[in-house]
């Protein structure tokens, strides 16, 4: 087995490069789509929590509950109604990002010092403009930290979306397992691990760029802002 079926056969990788590249693109697309949709839904939920403060614990509990649904069960529960489609992959993926993103948005807004908001009010800004023009920009570093966690988690979960026929690199892994042919498995697994680490590193750089003070003194983030 080891001669014909090593962990990685370069000739196969070269021959299948178009399939592999397509899988990477599909993986990245599904990840980005998930995070963008997740941010949009989280934004709406955060707005509801801000407008009606009493809804905040409920939203927190509901998004936390969604996060605890096992991924295999979540994908499985949807297949009878939505089939082996991208929708079936997207619903759980987006649902899993919400707990992190809603909390990031609300925590980010909470940590803006009240004095900043008062100053904005004193110069005559309306509540909406204070929120969107003053508090939200100051919350961006915290929101980006949330996006980092959501993105990296999603890369891993997209791999698993292969069980419902979606999600790029995971399909290479399952293909390799079914045929007991290790090259697609190794390539799929290595690339998805690499993708997660690269995106994580990219977010670290982004965090440093937009909030250099947070690297040195995480505790006084709000004060420095």
């Amino acid at each position: 087995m080891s001669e014909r079926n090593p962990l990685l056969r370069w000739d196969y990788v070269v021959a299948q490069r178009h399939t592999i590249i397509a899988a990477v693109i599909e993986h990245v697309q599904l990840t980005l789509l998930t995070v963008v949709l997740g941010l949009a839904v989280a934004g709406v939920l955060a707005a509801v929590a801000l407008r009606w403060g009493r809804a905040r614990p409920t939203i927190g509990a509901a998004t936390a509950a969604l996060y605890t649904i096992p991924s295999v069960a979540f994908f499985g529960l949807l297949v009878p109604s939505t089939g082996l489609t991208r929708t079936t992959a997207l619903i759980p993926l987006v649902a899993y990002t919400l707990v992190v993103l809603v909390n990031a948005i609300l925590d980010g807004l909470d940590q803006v010092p009240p004095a900043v908001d008062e100053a904005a009010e004193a110069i005559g800004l309306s509540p909406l403009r204070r929120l969107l023009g003053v508090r939200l920009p100051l919350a961006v570093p915290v929101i980006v930290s949330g996006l980092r966690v959501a993105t990296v988690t999603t890369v891993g979960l997209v791999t698993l979306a292969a069980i419902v026929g979606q999600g790029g690199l995971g399909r290479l892994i399952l293909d390799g397992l079914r045929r007991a042919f290790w090259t697609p498995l190794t390539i799929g697994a290595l690339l998805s691990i690499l993708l997660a680490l690269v995106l994580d590193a990219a977010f670290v750089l982004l965090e440093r760029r937009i909030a250099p003070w947070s690297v040195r003194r995480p505790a006084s983030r709000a004060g420095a802002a």
Partner: protein
Amino acid sequence: MQLELAQAALPRDITLAEWLLDPTSWTGSSGILPSLLDTLALCSAVMLAAVVLAVPSAALLAHLGRAKVLSAWLVNIGRAVPTFALAALLVPVSLRTGLGFEPWPIFIALTAMALPPIYLGTYTAVSGVDRAAVDAARAVGLRSREVLLRVELPLASSVILTGVRVAAVQVVATEPIRAFLGGDGLGRYVRDGLGQRNDTLLLGGAVLVAALAGAVGMVLSLLQRAIEPTGVRRLRPSVRSTRIATAASDLRTDPDTAPHASEPPGALTGAMTLTDDERD
């Protein structure tokens, strides 16, 4: 082979309730009960390994105030690595080293997933213990090891247990991917349901997996409350530092920690630090 067996055992037109209420669904080699025990056994082994690896090392490093940056790095990388991909990557490695298809790859991948929350919980909990309590413990003559075991760990226990619980729930929720990596466990029905396009099996399997994760989460929350040291639980409200300082000095009267013949040199320094802090 297993796929065919499961298919033979379950006609297509059976309803979800019929499947779940039929005793024969629960017994037999591919039954729900053995699959459930299989899953719980693997998860227990994973948690045991993860706790043994993470809690002592994190507690000791936090006690010594070492490896802060390294810890953060490892935790971040550990969190970023996708569990399914890691387990898959280990399948051919496990086969080649003669360990077989199962369950080493999923065991290692799940352990790697459980380590970061436990390690981080322990590290932050121990390093977050009120310095006044640690200084007081030193001042009354506790040795470094005793400070860790009798003051820092008890005071950190609640946060440590939370980390362990979070990891356990994550492990139970992720274990079903094992069914897609050549193993069985409770995830097998989702896999077989997908493979056979049998919605009853698929939905039933998904419900079982979700119910187990929910049940484990609830049981562990109750368990955490039950095993938390009662003295520490009583500390929490109001004046934490004074109560903790009292608890530390109470240790002196404990026969197990009788005053030492020679006071460790750190004790005096500790006492001075304490008064210095109070003056600020």
